[in-house]
């Protein structure tokens, strides 16, 4: 794992960038540094703050040109960030912790989702209002999420053996069709899909039951943090400005998302509802006091505890607030 993180592709890009700069001469006031941000999922309002930062020129004014790379079901975030294809990736504390355990030199620079979006969704006729209610029920989820359920059970003294686990795709249909009694999902996607189709559901947010885990975290490699601080500060500053603008006008953020991706199959009712539901996950008293993406020793300690239960022992070194401190300093 001692391979240089700056790949050939990357250094070639830098070299060409420098050549371009030289050719333009001293007349150009400010060159745009081209970087990429690797998103964790397909384009949607989930990343609307970034679209605002791009469209309103927040990044341009900071000297950055940011390419937003789409994620997907078979598009892990970590490889492009390790390879240098993307300067920063949007991950989650558990994914980052496992990648670090496998030798990737990542640190978490900021936290877009203060509250973890994982939830247990059920139907009102047979609701799951608290973790104990899962006992004796059938839960549908992709089996890759088993550690999440195990941790929730451990945190709340629930006997996981009394829950019948049914492997499904990440899809609300098994719940609606009565094949399962509840789903393990994000509170901002499958419950929104049911809501938009007129199906009432009960959503138990796992963060309310001890599952404290930073989500939608910004990650970069040690090498990038050491050598490209200015770019990282500019990127996160643009993000913070974009997300503040998002919070100020959800309608505008949704419309921008829809206009920017006409071919992505997005519909307004779903997007506006998702935009609303992610606000309480992203903004808290902590961010109001210190700024977007903030985290403290205390929240980090809680995360370390949850990660321990997930079987991922980490130290506070996984987090690095220095970039964010520069972002919110002035």
């Amino acid at each position, binding site marked *: 794992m001692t391979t240089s993180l700056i790949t050939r592709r990357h250094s070639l890009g830098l070299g060409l960038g420098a050549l371009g700069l030289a050719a333009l001469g001293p007349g150009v006031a400010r060159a745009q540094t081209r970087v990429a941000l690797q998103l964790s999922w397909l384009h949607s309002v989930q990343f609307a703050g970034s679209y605002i930062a791009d469209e309103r020129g927040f990044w341009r004014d900071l000297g950055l040109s940011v390419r937003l790379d789409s994620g997907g079901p078979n*598009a892990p975030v970590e*490889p492009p960030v390790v390879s240098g294809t993307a300067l920063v990736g949007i991950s989650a504390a558990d994914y980052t912790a496992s990648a670090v355990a496998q030798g990737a030199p990542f640190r978490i620079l900021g936290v877009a989702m203060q509250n973890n979006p994982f939830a247990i969704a059920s139907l009102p006729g047979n609701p799951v209002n608290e973790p104990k209610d899962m006992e004796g029920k059938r839960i549908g989820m992709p*089996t*890759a999420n088993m550690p999440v359920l195990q941790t929730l059970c451990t945190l709340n003294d629930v006997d996981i053996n009394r829950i019948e686990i049914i492997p499904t795709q990440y*899809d609300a249909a098994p719940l609606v069709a009565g094949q399962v009694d509840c789903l393990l999902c994000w509170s901002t996607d499958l419950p929104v899909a049911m809501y938009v189709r007129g199906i009432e559901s009960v959503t138990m947010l796992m963060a309310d039951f001890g599952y404290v885990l930073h989500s939608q975290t910004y990650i970069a490699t040690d090498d990038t943090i050491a050598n490209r601080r200015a770019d990282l500060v500019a990127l996160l500053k643009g993000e913070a400005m974009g997300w503040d603008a998002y919070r100020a006008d959800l309608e505008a953020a949704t419309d921008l998302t829809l206009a920017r991706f006409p071919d992505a199959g997005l519909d307004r009712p*779903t997007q506006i509802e998702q935009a609303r539901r992610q606000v309480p996950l992203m903004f808290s008293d902590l961010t109001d006091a210190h700024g977007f993406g903030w985290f403290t020793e205390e929240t980090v300690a809680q995360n370390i505890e949850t990660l321990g239960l997930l079987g991922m022992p980490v130290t506070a070194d996984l987090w690095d607030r220095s970039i964010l401190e520069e972002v919110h300093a002035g």
Partner: protein
Amino acid sequence: MSTVADLPGARPTALARVPRWLPGVVRFLRLWEGAAWWLAGRFLLAGPLDVIAHAWANAGLLTRAAAVTLENAAWGFVIGNLAAVALALMALALPRGAGVVAGLALVVFCLPLVATAPILRVLYGPGSGPQITIAALAVYYTTFIPLMVGLRAAPASWFDLIRLYGRGGPSALVQVRAMAALPYLVAGLQIAAPAAILGAMIGEFTGADRGLGVLVIRAMRGLDVTATWTLATISAAVAMAGYGALGALGRWLAPDRPEALLTPPPASATRLAERAAIGALTVLVVLLLWWAAMELADLNRFFAKRPDDVWRFLVTAPQAAAARATLAAAMVETLLWTIPGYVAGLVLGAALAAVLTLYPAAAGSVMPIAVALRSVPIVTTAPLIVLMLGRGATGTIAIVAVMTFFPALVACLQGLRQAPGQVLDVFAAYAARPVQRLLHAQLPAMLPAFFAAARMSVPAAVLAVTVAEWLATGRGMGHLMALSASTSNYNMLWSATATLAAVSALGYAGVALLERRALRRYAPEQLS
């Protein structure tokens, strides 16, 4: 040569005006609407009427998405099939190296997408590169195998003729082998058409921002069952059109019945030791290419594990024993489902081909359904299959059979048509019943194609089982790979990949052994 044998299929001209497939399609649509009506409110299936309405309302979006996906599929189709032809010619030009080329082609085909997708995305960056590559990877093998059979499917007497005229290998290639291979090539291309479209769609899962695959993910997560089935219908319809067009092209290029293939066996027969040496050489070449490709592309070891990483993980590391145990347990679970699913898919394909030969009129009903089953993305059909058959053995085997029967069906249909015209004439002259003709003339002639299908179905079945495990059962190698990928455990992922490839290659070698026994008797020209 198209003489008496064609008579049973001949019909009054007035009826011939109605396309043969029309009644089948109508029956299929009625069945589908009925099923949708029966399942209404369960968010599992939308009927054709809803699908048409949705397609009409979203025509612009769907057309643009289809255009993107089809363009990638077309590029993948062209590149993958050209690669198959190049590989086949290489294997023919270097008979000693043929085993290594075939082994290499097999191993690359076995690579699961969870392992290769991140590498492709890092190599290409944003854009269509991964989609096109995955589409090409999905098609080259199912063209390569029939093509290899076809290039050998020429009687020795033809080659003698070429030699008598004092002409060499190139003439033999163009005038004998190419002609003999044409029907097999067409069968391969027909199998490739739906595979390329599926490959392009799955390629979009690696981080594309538009296309049918992107819309499928969106629709399924959005509980938009009408959109899901509209997308499935569009991809199936396009695949069927491709299949039909390639079939028509084949009939136009090679309308004749084949000449007799009954020839004495060639003298050469490879010894066991020689085959073992080829196997060892293949393993060596695979390991070398694996290492060299990753080094040359300068891929980071975090996600692009080299052979020595896998060796350390499985053999010398402190937790190696635990890793081996996890891997072995998952592999055993997977094999328990793979073998019945493989046999079921193969038998289903061959049986359907036999039925269609006995009752050609049934082709109109069966072929559209068969092509549709193959080309509807498995992510949309899996929930339905699971609902009907459960998550246990039946459901899993059904998913595997659905994903593997198609190459067997197409290859066997092609093979059944390879019965020598003169032999069929003899059966016709004696007024033999169709069943007798099938048993004694057509089935033996089908064997080379059947075994080609059996060989190429080995990796297909393994891939199918891992998909079923990922989507439905949550066990075995499919589950292990999904879990490893989501926790960045690339050591385990690459170990699983290597194990799957090795097991597939062993299964392939086993089938090839059976094949040699059978062909020695029925089609000795294949054993050169």
